[in-house]
């Protein structure tokens, strides 16, 4: 008796809890990313020295500095650091023992950030690009109480070493380095600061020059050259210069990796060790892992890597006579591995991550203190691909002779950054998405498969089609048990209105499209737009060498297929659902004439001009005049359905849109006169349809452009002049066949025309400018299946890290200027023009989240007309669904099926109860009447 009651009560509880939940955090998703962390700039550190809790700090390859909570992988804070230029791509991040700041060095700027909240404490600019930044753990030979000072080594024309006050950022002393030697790195021991310089010999070999400085005064105390003979061909062979430790070391190998040479900085003796070969492959990389703490044991680990395996050796330094001795070695394991160093008091621990195991050893002896087997890292990868660790950072706590707790963050070869706690995966951050360079949407193949089967049945002969259909249903019957199992749950969810998009498998609305992202590292990552927190697959598609870049373009020409094309020109197809490469015999070479398109006009941007070809011979050309450069070119999208060819006015007359699928908006800039020109071109004939010129434009600011349907939009930052005010402006232009309603202009009623033959007067363009409060870096437009839904202009606002969706009606160029709208105009939704367009808080797609570093926004239509899928990428990844005309063809989340059914049931009951009463009353009435 009680049980059904309880069930009923719980059933009512669920919707009661969901009353105030908005769609905001349900239909959209946001990954606040940092980019791939670098090994030397990632570490665990306690932001508050008095508390035990630590955060993971990293300065990533995307120059994002941030702190990540190791408990759940959430971002605590981040700062995007501007690099001084791409050529000098080194960055540093240091944290002093027991300090509440972290110190970063990038470009020529040294900055200190509060470790707890990421606020800037101080920053200093060096004269040249930074070569190294270190923290002086000991000041004047003893541990200081307050902020620890930093030492920076900068290169450029006047290389120098500077000591920067840790509390204020003031330069305490600076030492200019004489000679032409290139500064390389800094090392600090307890008594001295060493600047290591690279000296080029006549034979083009490199020698190491060490300059010892007094940390208190900055005076040179010693200088010597290490006799590296002719082994050091390039600086790449210097594998490590230990930084802050009791005995900093320099280690290098020869080019063939046969001997390892180690020098304890401050002495001139060099210990030499021959490197053993463990397998047939040549050693590709030698890395050195040493503790970064001044009072830890002076032990270090050398990590050797070949193409197929890796191993390591641990060395001890005898502090008394500065002798280096090999202590023990860690066995060879197949695959790549990562080592990390952690310290507890003076003890040093090395943690090793291999494909399938995590183990910790003490630096003193080779006994394993803890070992955990890793079944998988829990990340998506390509079919048959082995996920390998790239580098790791660990925090170890040891009780007695065993590891009581260990947290290790590992960057994997897939680009995921995962945290393992005692060998179990706790979280992963898809940091590979921070370097996304191209994106496309694709429909999953299973949706397509049904469509294909139906196609087969529609075109086959009736008997064969019937057999095919029966077979299909037999196959479908196999899914019946699982369907029956899930049925009750579905019904309950349906009643409560919670099933909207969590029903796995079926996707009747087209919300669960596959988003394929190509990353800079040559991987293709697929996300599910319905369940974005789960990576579908992640595979290597371009075999890139380190430092090599590619510019892929992704497209989904056919449902269920993702095509990757890069500068090489060939397209390779992948299955959208599982990432399998489809038969390679479908290369699409764009320059090969094929029958359907040989009479097509193609145009490309060559140098600083647009060149078109027709029938494979040059056709029209647009060359900007001397001094003018092309900023960007946006054609009308290929798939840009338009539901109505005209705008129906209130009085039932029609303004005909100028709909030409071959138009493009070209923006050019004249730097000398700071002028920007915008041209609407017909891309078949090269004729100019509309052109205008804006003087006094800040050409260093972004000039985004967009073209869709029969309108275009662009934005720029204008300088103050007599005609305009200083500020950011958004211009909208809409092109009509004629401005007279019901008139189709020169085209008249002709049903067919050629842009080349027919004489047409140019169409009419209405433009309007709005002053906007902040610059726009990128424009995009929503797309729906049939183009019935009104459109939204999506604008990326870099200044407030946001994306806004501006309804087209707000920026309509037909808004009446300097007068109130007439009744007819009001009915069309036209408001009186206002020069300032304020972004309504309701337009912000990201709500209160900060979407940082967005470089592009892509949109795709869902299967239902009202909705457009949006995906923004750059550093962060953000995606949502938009219904610019509201969801007119789908029931909202708040629609309660249970309530509706209950109402119907109640009405039915009421009808049954009341019907006899009414009948009796009617009968009574009839008797009375007669």
């Amino acid at each position, binding site marked *: 008796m009680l049980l059904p009651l309880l069930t009923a009560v719980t059933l009512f509880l669920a919707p009661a809890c969901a009353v105030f939940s908005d769609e905001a955090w349900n239909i959209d998703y946001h990954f606040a990313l940092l980019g791939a962390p670098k090994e030397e700039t990632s570490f665990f550190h306690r932001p508050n020295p008095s508390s035990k809790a630590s955060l993971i700090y990293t300065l990533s390859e995307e120059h994002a500095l941030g702190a990540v909570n190791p408990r759940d992988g959430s971002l605590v804070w981040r700062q995007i650091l501007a690099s001084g230029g791409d050529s000098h791509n080194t960055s540093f991040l240091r944290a002093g023992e027991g300090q509440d700041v972290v110190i970063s060095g990038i470009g020529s700027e040294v900055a200190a950030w509060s470790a707890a909240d990421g606020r800037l404490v101080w920053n200093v600019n060096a004269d040249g690009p930074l070569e190294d930044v270190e923290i002086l753990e000991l000041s004047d030979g003893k541990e200081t109480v307050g902020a620890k000072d930093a030492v920076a080594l900068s290169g450029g024309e006047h290389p120098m070493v500077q000591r920067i006050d840790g509390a204020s950022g003031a330069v305490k002393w600076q030492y200019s380095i004489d000679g032409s030697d290139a500064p390389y790195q800094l090392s600090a021991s307890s008594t001295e600061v060493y600047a290591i310089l690279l000296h080029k010999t006549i034979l083009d070999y490199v020698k190491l020059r060490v300059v010892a400085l007094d940390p208190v005064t900055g005076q040179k105390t010693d200088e010597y050259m290490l006799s590296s003979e002719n082994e050091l061909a390039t600086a790449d062979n210097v594998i490590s210069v230990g930084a802050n430790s009791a005995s900093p070391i320099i280690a290098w190998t020869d080019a063939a990796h046969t001997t390892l040479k180690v020098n304890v900085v401050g002495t001139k003796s060099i210990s030499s060790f021959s490197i053993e070969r463990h397998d047939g492959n040549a050693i590709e990389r030698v890395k050195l892992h040493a503790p970064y703490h001044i009072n830890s044991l002076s032990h270090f680990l050398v990590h050797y890597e070949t193409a197929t395996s890796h191993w390591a050796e641990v060395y001890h330094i005898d502090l008394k006579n500065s002798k280096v001795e090999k202590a023990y070695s860690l066995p060879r394991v197949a695959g790549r591995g990562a080592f990390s160093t952690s310290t507890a008091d003076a003890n040093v621990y090395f943690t090793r991550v291999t494909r399938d195991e995590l183990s910790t050893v003490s630096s003193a002896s080779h006994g394993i203190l803890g070992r955990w087997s890793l079944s998988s890292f829990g990340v998506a990868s390509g079919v048959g691909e082995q996920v390998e660790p790239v580098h790791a950072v660990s925090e170890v706590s040891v009780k007695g002779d065993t590891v009581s707790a260990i947290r290790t963050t590992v960057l994997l070869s897939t680009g995921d950054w995962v945290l393992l706690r005692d060998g179990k995966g706790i979280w992963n951050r898809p940091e590979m998405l921070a370097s996304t360079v191209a994106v496309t949407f694709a429909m999953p193949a299973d949706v397509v498969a049904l469509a294909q089967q139906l196609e087969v049945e529609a075109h086959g002969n009736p008997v064969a089609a019937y057999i095919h259909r029966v077979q299909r249903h037999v196959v479908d019957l196999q899914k019946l048990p699982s369907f029956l199992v899930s049925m009750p749950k579905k019904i309950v969810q349906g009643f409560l209105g919670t099933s909207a998009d969590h029903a796995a498998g079926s996707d009747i609305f087209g919300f669960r499209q596959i988003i394929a992202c190509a990353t800079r590292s040559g991987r293709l990552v697929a996300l599910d737009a319905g369940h974005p927190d789960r990576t579908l697959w992640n595979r290597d598609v371009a075999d890139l060498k380190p430092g090599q870049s590619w510019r892929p373009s992704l497209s989904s020409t056919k449902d269920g297929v993702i095509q990757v094309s890069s500068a090489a020109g060939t397209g390779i197809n992948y299955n959208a659902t599982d990432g399998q490469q489809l038969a390679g015999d479908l290369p699409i070479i764009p320059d090969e004439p094929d029958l359907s398109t040989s009479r097509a006009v193609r145009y490309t941007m060559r140098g600083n001009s647009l060149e078109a070809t*027709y029938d494979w011979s040059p*056709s029209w050309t*647009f060359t900007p005049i001397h001094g003018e450069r092309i900023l960007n070119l946006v054609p009308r999208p290929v798939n840009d359905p338009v539901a109505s060819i005209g705008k129906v006015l209130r009085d039932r007359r029609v303004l005909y849109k100028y709909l030409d699928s071959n138009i493009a908006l070209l923006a050019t800039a004249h730097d000398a006169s700071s002028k920007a020109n915008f041209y609407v071109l017909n891309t078949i004939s090269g004729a100019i349809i509309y052109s*205008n*010129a804006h003087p006094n434009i800040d050409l260093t600011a972004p000039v985004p452009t967009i073209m869709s349907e029969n309108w275009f939009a662009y934005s720029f930052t204008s300088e103050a002049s007599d005609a305009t005010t200083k500020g950011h402006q958004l211009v909208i232009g809409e092109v009509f066949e004629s401005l007279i309603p019901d008139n189709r202009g020169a085209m008249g009623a002709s049903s067919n025309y050629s842009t080349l033959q027919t004489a047409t007067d140019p169409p009419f363009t209405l433009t309007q*400018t709005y002053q906007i409060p902040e610059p726009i870096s990128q424009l995009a437009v929503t797309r729906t299946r049939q183009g019935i839904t009104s459109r939204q202009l999506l604008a990326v606002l870099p200044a407030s890290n946001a994306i806004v969706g501006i309804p087209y009606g707000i920026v309509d160029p037909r808004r009446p200027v300097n007068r109130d709208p007439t009744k007819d105009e009001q009915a069309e939704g036209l408001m009186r023009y206002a*020069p300032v367009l304020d972004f309504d808080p309701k337009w912000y797609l990201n709500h209160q989240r900060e979407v940082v570093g967005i470089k592009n926004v892509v949109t795709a239509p869902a299967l239902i007309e009202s909705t457009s899928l949006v995906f923004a990428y750059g550093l962060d990844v953000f995606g949502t669904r938009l219904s610019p005309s509201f969801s007119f063809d789908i029931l909202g989340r708040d629609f309660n099926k249970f309530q509706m059914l209950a109402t119907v049931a109640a009405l039915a009951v009421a009808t049954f109860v009341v019907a006899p009463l009414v009948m009796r009353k009617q009968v009574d009435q009839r008797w009375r009447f007669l």
Partner: protein
Amino acid sequence: MRVNTVISILLTFLCSLSAAFETEHTVDVLAWPLSAPKGATLAKITYNSTAATVKSYTQPTIPSSDDTVRIGYYHPSGSWSGIATAASNFAPEKSKKLLLHLNSDGELYHVGFRASDYGSSIATSNKMDGMSVELVKVRPGPTPHLNKPVVVNADGTVPSKEPEKSFLQKYWYFIAGFLILQVVMSSGKGE
């Protein structure tokens, strides 16, 4: 007063004179059938920032196999700018019009071409053998239509609004009419 007028008229005259004598540019517009190795001169046109005339026009010879002709010109830097149009547009019965697109400095940056079947209404002054020319100047970009600025007095204060008329000032004639009516009616009663 009169001196001022004279000076201003003189200035206007000088200005228009200088405009008339503005440097004339000449451009050779070439027609280049798709299969031809080189373009041939289609028209020589002189233009300044306000007007253009066709100096000479040569009917292009177009091979019958070609259905597309490029029309363009060479920039002073040697690079080519041009458009594509159908060869049938050069039929003698068509009236043809070249468009010269000028930027805001009066420089030529692109050409256009239009042909129509019927006799067009273009002024014949700049026409030669069915070829006319039209200048298309780049439009100044749209600017925001700002609201009217508030005009302040010399001392920087906002001028106070005219004081509104009082009720009596606004509607005195109604009251007066009513009173007159009363007086007239009462006098009528008195008789």
